[in-house]
């Protein structure tokens, strides 16, 4: 599902004298359906950068990234948009939404056109314990934990074969952590290939089928 070969990513900061900031080098990784790989390592090791390269958000400097049979490094914009829409779910650390759209619509919008979109969104929000009074409120005003759960809901409402999870449980309380852990496991058991960063050891142990250690480039 996911295949990374000799991936390197160096940021060039043109406005700081062309400083070069190597973050990834020689990264190779394979993740098959039903696997959940936890990236581990100190901050600055490039865990988030790797996820963003998989999503096609960052452009790798060299190497190859194949996700669901698409070569991400050379895919056209259209191909990448199609790949994301059909196959790749990405939970970022921050929720980015249009300021005025209510929470329920942020989630249901991901499956728009489907007649049961709203129902499915409601079920997910219930499961993630978002109080009903917040459903019709734009998430911009939500707490960190609530925003994160909206983010998780909008990603999980589509059953995508590839999931990239950047600290999905970071600001959740114990109860919600259990729920999200269960959701990740359900997705994996259903055949998803998952790469994630899980700070919480308990969550990591509960979801990961494999742990990949990363270290900072010297």
């Amino acid at each position: 599902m996911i295949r990374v070969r000799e991936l390197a990513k160096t940021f060039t900061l043109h406005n700081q004298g062309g400083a070069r900031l190597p973050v990834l080098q020689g990264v190779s990784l394979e993740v098959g359906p039903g696997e959940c790989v936890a990236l581990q390592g100190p901050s600055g090791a490039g865990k988030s950068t790797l996820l963003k390269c998989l999503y096609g958000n960052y452009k790798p400097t060299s190497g190859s990234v194949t996700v669901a049979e698409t070569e991400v490094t050379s895919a056209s914009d259209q191909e990448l948009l199609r790949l994301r829409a059909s196959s790749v779910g990405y939970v970022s650390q921050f929720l980015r939404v249009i300021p005025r759209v209510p929470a329920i619509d942020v989630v249901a919008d991901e499956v728009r056109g489907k007649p049961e979109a709203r129902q499915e969104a409601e079920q997910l929000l219930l499961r993630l314990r978002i109080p009903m009074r917040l459903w019709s409120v734009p998430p911009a005003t939500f707490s960190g934990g609530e925003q994160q759960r909206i983010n998780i809901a909008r990603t999980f409402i589509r059953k995508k074969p590839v999931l990239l999870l950047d600290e999905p449980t970071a600001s959740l309380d114990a109860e919600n952590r259990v729920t999200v852990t269960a959701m990740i496991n359900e997705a994996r058991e259903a055949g998803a290939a998952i790469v994630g960063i899980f700070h919480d050891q308990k969550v990591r142990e509960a979801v990961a089928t494999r742990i990949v250690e990363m270290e900072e480039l010297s």
Partner: protein
Amino acid sequence: MSVILEARGLAKRFGERPAIEDVSFELHAGEVLAVVGESGSGKTTLLNCVSGRLRPDAGTVRFMTRHEGLKELYADLSEAERRFLARTDWGYVHQRPEEGLRMNVSAGANVGERLMALGERHYGRIRTAATDWLSRVEMDPERIDDSPRTFSGGMRQRLQIARNLVTDPRLVFMDEPTSGLDVSVQARLLDLLRSLTRALGLAAIVVTHDLAVARLLAQRMLVMKGGRIVEQGLTDQVLDDPQHPYTQLLVSSVLQP
């Protein structure tokens, strides 16, 4: 998704000064493309060239017509055909709604004008369409007979959008559609634009200097500087991992968009 508009090697000079040079890009059906850059970077000239309003000195602009395939705007189409496209299959949303509206006729007449231009000669049907579109842009249909002069800036902008969308265009050009508005009004308009472009499967080219607007509306973006495209790609790519020195400067000089 199929290409709806394709620009190749566009150049336009005003006297000695080149306004745009060697500009090429594609727009796909249903896609929203943001054009960003500081003022004077050629954004508006580019928009005018690709919307059939300004003949470029060099290069081609091809549009996928509904029935006759790709047509070059300036070589294959007469002025009459370009104007026909402009009031049927295209929309153009001006930065200042006063430029895109007829300020001396009512809101309903503003929305109905394109229908009448297409030969609609039934008052009742024009009225129904205008009422429908006013509510679709979240305006009170009771105000159908009011003059746009009595409307706030945000309402005028929504009226301008309704006026453009009443003929079900496939492509809308927008020149800084939110920049004249208060921040709270901007958010509402952005939300409206986003939901309309999605619901109608509209392709759009949005010229903006506001990276947050680009982030919210557009799947792809072009960055212009000195009349040239210095970078183009998916919006999140360009904003999160900018490659060109100018784009890096642009992104780093605003608050997190």
